C-alpha cells in the first residue's frame, strides 16, 4: 500500500494575466520504505511540491493523502503539528540553529513537542554516532564542515521517528563524493526504518541513489 499519494496537484500564483503555474496535475505515489527522487532543473516546481507535501503550502487543486488521511485540507496549526510529529525535513541550507550545539539541534525536536528527556539525549547522541559525528556532538554548527552539518540536519530530521522524510537538495553544498555518501546514508536509514522519503535534487547522479525517480519539468511530470 502507498503511504503517500499525490493526485492531480496543481499550484498557481497570482491571478488574471499574471498567473504563474508552478505545478500542473502532478500525480504519483510512494511506498513505505522507499525513496523517491524528484529530479528537475531550477524552476521546475520541485520545492513547491515538497512544500505542499510538508503542509507549508496549500495546493490550488488536487489531493495529498498520507496513510489514508488527506492532509491538504488541514489548518496551519494542524499542519504544524503534523510536521512536528510525522515529518522530518532536511533543508538545503541545513537551517541548524547557530547557537545550539549539534546534539542540542537534535534535541530541538522533542522540545518543540514539550521537553527533552535523558532518553531523548541518548537517542540524539546515538544518531550522531550512527552518522559518524558522535565526537562532534558538542560543537556549534559554525565549527562543523558542510558534510558534518548536512549529517546533523539529517539526524535532526530523524529525531522524531518521522513517517516521511522530505529532503531538499541534500547535496547542493557538497562535492560529488560527499554528496553520494550522504544520499547512500539517507537511503540506508529510510529503508532500515521503514520510512518514506522524497528527495528533491537537480543532480542526476544523486537521483540514482533513490528507488524511483520522478522527473519534473515546468511543473509537470515527464
Amino acid at each position, binding site marked *: 500500500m502507498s503511504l503517500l499519494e499525490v493526485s492531480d496537484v496543481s499550484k498557481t500564483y497570482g491571478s488574471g494575466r499574471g498567473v*504563474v503555474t508552478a505545478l500542473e496535475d502532478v500525480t504519483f505515489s510512494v511506498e513505505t520504505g522507499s525513496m523517491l527522487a524528484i529530479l528537475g532543473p531550477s524552476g521546475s516546481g520541485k520545492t513547491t511540491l515538497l*512544500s505542499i507535501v510538508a503542509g*507549508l*503550502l496549500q495546493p490550488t487543486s488536487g489531493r495529498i493523502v498520507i496513510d489514508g488521511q488527506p492532509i491538504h485540507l488541514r489548518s496551519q*496549526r494542524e499542519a504544524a503539528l503534523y*510536521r512536528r510529529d510525522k515529518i522530518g525535513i532536511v533543508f538545503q541550507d541545513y*537551517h541548524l*540553529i547557530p547557537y*545550539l550545539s549539534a546534539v542540542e539541534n537534535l534535541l530541538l525536536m522533542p522540545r*518543540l513537542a514539550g521537553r527533552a528527556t535523558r532518553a531523548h539525549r541518548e537517542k540524539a547522541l546515538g544518531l550522531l554516532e550512527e552518522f559518524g559525528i558522535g565526537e562532534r556532538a558538542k560543537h556549534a554548527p559554525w565549527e562543523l564542515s558542510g558534510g558534518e552539518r548536512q549529517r546533523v540536519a539529517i539526524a535532526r530530521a530523524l529525531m522524531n521517528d518521522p513517517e516521511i522524510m522530505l529532503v531538499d537538495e541534500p547535496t547542493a553544498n557538497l562535492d560529488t563524493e560527499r554528496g553520494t555518501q550522504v544520499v547512500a546514508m539517507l537511503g540506508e536509514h529510510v529503508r532500515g526504518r521503514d520510512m518514506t522519503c522524497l528527495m528533491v535534487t537537480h543532480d542526476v547522479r544523486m537521483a540514482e541513489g533513490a528507488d524511483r525517480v520522478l522527473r519534473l519539468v515546468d511543473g509537470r511530470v515527464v
Partner: protein
Amino acid sequence: MLALSEIVHSKLKFALIALAIGLVVALTMTLSAMSEGLVTGMTGAKGNLDADALVFQGDTYLNFERSLLTTEDVEQIRSAEGVAQAYGVGHVYISVDAPEESFDTHAFGLTDDFEQLPVVEGVGGMPQDGETIVDETVRSEGVEVGDTVTLTPIGRELTVIGFTESRRYVMAPVFYVNMNTYEDLRAASMFGVMAETSDAELPSATHVIDAVEGNVSVAAVKLDEGTTVEGLAAALEDDFDVVTPDEAALAGNGMPVMVLAVNGIQGVSFVIGALVIGVFFYITTLHKTGQIAAIKALGASNAFVYRQLLAQILLLVTAGALLGTGLALGAGASMPPAMAFDPRPDRWGVTLALVYLMAFVGSLFSLRSILKIDPATALDHAEH
C-alpha cells in the same frame, strides 16, 4: 532554553541590549528621583510636617508666607471636634551670613513636636532660645553642627545644635527654632531694620513683640480616629483652609506648574525609553526571520516561538533593571547633597513595572512579525 542558549551564544549583542535597557531604566529612575528631589526641595518642610492636616488662614491659597493665625485661631482649631492635637508652625524669611557666602532661607518656629525631625547629626528635641536644628543641605554653605551663624541684617545669632534631613523649602535648608526665637526673629525681620535706619516714630520693641506673640503661619493638626480632613474643614467653616500636608506641599510657589512640567519630562523620557526597548526586540526578531521560519517549518507553533521571545525579554529586562537601578543609585550617590535627588522605592517600583509592561507591549510588535513569518520561506530558495 532556546532563549537562554541564544543569549549565552551572543553575549556581546545581548549585553549591549541589556546595557541599553539599563541606561533607559537609569535615565527614567534618575529623572524620577530628581523630580521627587525637586518637589522635596521645594516643599519637603511642608509635606513632611508630622500632621494629618494643615490649617491655613482662609483665602491665602495655602501659602505659608501669607497665612497668619492668631493665638485665638489656634485655640479654636485645637478645640474643634475631631482634633486630637494641634501645634503652631510659624514661617519667617531669614538671611544667613554663612562661611561660604550669605544666603536667603526660611526659619520655621514650632510650638511643639520637635521629635518629628529626624536627626542625622548632633542632637534633636526642643531647641533652647537662640538654638536651631537645620536641614543637612546647609553643609554646602559651609555650616556645621556647633557653628554659630549670624542672621543679616538683623544681627541675631543662632547656634546649630543638629542636622535633620528632607526639610527644605523653596530649595533652601530650613532652620527650625522654638517659638521664643521665632517671635524674636519675626519681630526683628519686621521692624529691626526700620528701627535702625528710619527717623520716623516707631512702635517700641515691646509693642512689636506683643503684636506678634503667639501668632503662627499655620496649625498642624493630628485628628482623632474616624475624623477626616473634610470633616475638620466643615467644622471650621470658611475662616480656614484645611488640607493634608501632601496637598499643601503641592500648592503655592508655582508648584502645580512645576509638578506638571517634571511629570511631563518623566513621561516623555519614559515613552522614548519604552519605544527604544520595543524597537530593540523588534529588530532582533526581524534579524531572525530565516531561523524562525525554519523552526516553524520543523513544526514549532507561533506560541512556542513567542514564548522563547518573552523569556528572552524577561531575562534581558531583569538584567537591565538591575543594572539601571545600580546606575541610578550610583548617580544619586555621586551628586552633591544640595542637588535634588530623592529616590522613592514606590516610584521606582512603578518605573520598573512600566518598563516590564512596555517591553511586553513591544514584544507584541515582534509577535506580529512572528505570525507573519511564512515557514514555507525556509524551503524557498528562488524556486517555484
